[in-house]
């Protein structure tokens, strides 16, 4: 089990990559995604007359 420390670090980096990907979709790419025509929530918002959330 000599390589366990390096391997643990590698796994933690993988978790960090997943967290960064989640952050990207939830913030960086947010506006582009929620404004898509195929977002079913657009129809609900249009019916209710409310604009898309900004920033949350």
């Amino acid at each position, binding site marked *: 089990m000599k390589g*366990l420390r390096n391997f643990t670090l590698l796994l933690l980096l993988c978790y960090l*990559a997943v*967290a960064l*990907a989640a952050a990207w979709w*939830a913030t960086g790419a947010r506006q*582009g995604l929620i404004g*898509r025509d*195929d977002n079913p929530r657009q129809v609900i918002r249009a019916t209710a007359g409310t604009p898309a959330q900004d920033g*949350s």
Partner: protein
Amino acid sequence: MPLRKGLDSILLLLTGAFLATNFFALGVLRQEISQATHWLHLLVWICCAIAGQFWLKHQLPKRDNLLFPLVMLPAGWGLLLIDRLLPAFADRQTLWLPSGLIVALLLATWRPILQLPQMQSRLTLALITLLLIAASILEGESAGLPGELLKLLLVIHFCVWLASRPQEVPILAWLARQGWRVLLWFLPLLLLVWQRDPGTALVTGLVLLLLLNLSGRSLRLLQVSTLLLVASAALAWLLLDVVQERVSIWLDPWSLADGRGYQIVQGLIAIAEGGVVGAGVGQGQALVVPVVHSDFVLVALAEEWGLAGVLVLLASMAIFTLRGLRIAWQLRDNSFLSLLAAGMTLLPGIQGLLICGGVLRLFPLTGVTLPFLGYGGSALLTSLLSASLLVRLSAEVSHGPT
């Protein structure tokens, strides 16, 4: 090694408070707050948390006390999410949690459990063969349990096999001496692929390869393993249409958004809708994502609790992995126990990483459930069994100066 005394109770109390608040909010939204059935899932979780904590405190006082709360958080969150998405499915999951926990805790505290795989390796092998037969005969939902248990037993038996290597013999020389027996480990994985379950085969295969590399540190072995992994992936892509489809969806889901890419595109939209703090429990529209309660449960969590919720979940998964690998390191004098601790940590750890990464489009979707959180009774049982073995292993760590 136990952390500060009472920390586990505090964490369970905090999780209970979080779940109670969210169940309350969901009850207000559904106008079911006065109905006893609305509180049933929370009540079952509380009973499991109290009984499990009490049992572990008395049976394994020297355990790692962080592991049980780290399992109960996603398990409770999963019940809440499934209840919010598909209440009928939550009833079934609520039955699986206490029954799985009872089996897992009884097994973990059974005295000879850690000696059994080494002493009765033929029995383990017979069980693996039986599960292989059951997995190839059964179809549909009932095929899930043998497949999941097979994954667990394969990893345990692999640890027994690896631990039988004399420490002075280099790993590659030992593998060469084993000859054709090395190939036998890949037969169950091939069967899982043939059963159209490449996700479980991938998780198991990855865990076996990682254990092999952890067992004997060799650059050559690492190169061979990587080559084997790449060759298997290429072969799977060439031979299996389901793999080709998942790769093409991963590469460009946007052009397939109306068809095969619908699930992943709607999943990403749901994550974006959640933003940083989420829409709130019951306020999202994640039900538009197909199979959201199982493979895509992270998406529902992201829409209702936002990035904050996802980070809390990922942190709990990462701490679980960290603690598990720490136990493996502390048990390094006994190669079987050390490998077993690493295996029981990596099974939920790698599975969680693969499905989260797949949903977030880091790599192709694998079609496995998120451990402890996603819907699936047999998946929950297997995850509970591996976590309970890890808790038992943590109690085996000698507490002298390290």
